[in-house]
């Protein structure tokens, strides 16, 4: 499996979804889902989710536990995976968010063979941190305002290796 330089496929945006999740007396969960026009702003859907929840509250015996607003995009047409690619071969990237906040771990399924280091002692396992495509990926992560799940900003890539999740 060589490092891929296939052109990225264009992605089509789907209708965003507001999902209200409910739980019943047994702990079983179910949801009300409704769709909105493409590119509807979050603020509008968030406000209307509150209205919808208030209208549903008196006609359900279940309790509201979660609200999700979901935007989706899909490749059109879908790309063809490379021969031999497997999601079990993951690249695991450790990004720092500062000295006193948790690391952010980002896993990339089907890591390309071409970005794996061939230098000992980590040959075949370590990801080559000075590979052009890895530098580009790390830049894309650190320069786009991404965070860990706690909202701490990602600042730098510190380590990366391949692991098999067979």
């Amino acid at each position, binding site marked *: 499996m060589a490092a891929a330089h296939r052109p990225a496929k264009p992605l089509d945006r789907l209708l965003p979804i507001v999902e209200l999740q409910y739980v019943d007396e047994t702990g079983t969960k179910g949801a009300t889902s409704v769709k909105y026009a493409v590119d509807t702003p979050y603020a509008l859907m968030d406000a209307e989710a509150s209205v919808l929840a208030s209208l549903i509250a008196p006609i359900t015996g279940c309790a509201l536990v*979660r609200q999700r607003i979901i935007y989706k995009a899909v490749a059109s047409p879908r790309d063809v995976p490379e021969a031999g690619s497997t999601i079990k071969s993951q690249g695991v990237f450790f990004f720092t968010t500062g000295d006193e906040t948790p690391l952010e771990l980002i896993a990339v399924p*089907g890591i390309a063979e071409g970005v794996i280091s061939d230098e000992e002692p980590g040959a075949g396992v370590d990801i080559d941190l000075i590979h052009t495509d890895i530098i580009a990926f790390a830049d894309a992560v650190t320069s786009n305002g991404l965070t860990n799940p706690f909202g701490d900003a990602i600042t730098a890539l510190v380590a990366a290796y391949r692991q098999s999740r067979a």
Partner: protein
Amino acid sequence: MALVNQPAGELSIHYRDETGSTGSTKFHFPYATLASVVFTQADILSAALNAITGCAIDGYTISYTKTEDTPETPADGARVENKGKFVYRTANARTSLFSVPGIEEAVLLPNSNTIDQADLLIVALNTAVVGGALNFCSADGSDLTAILEAYQVMAGGRRPSTR
């Protein structure tokens, strides 16, 4: 009792390998980030990932989650499988539906699985859906224009995790 947002929203990029197995990469972004900005970020990240994976990138999902900090107690006997189905006509002469888990028996017509469209609570819901207070649409993007039917069905829910 309030819905409280997570510290960060989530971006999941979806992959498919040669065997058809699927996986994903998860990223997080500050919750206040506009979706339009996250779309741009997702396109940049997808292009960068495309160069370092042999899998095909099938798409991505951007989600903003709020959770109830003190959920109410569900009513005795409430079951999410006991759904109210609301079917609407759409502006392009098709239909669209949404469901309400655990629909109350009180809004059904006597000895029937039909939801009473004259019930004040149902009138309020329908008025909001077709009257402009709620602007959701059908799966093909068409406006909902009038209620066609509403009824109760027993349909599957998701059991709580035992782990």
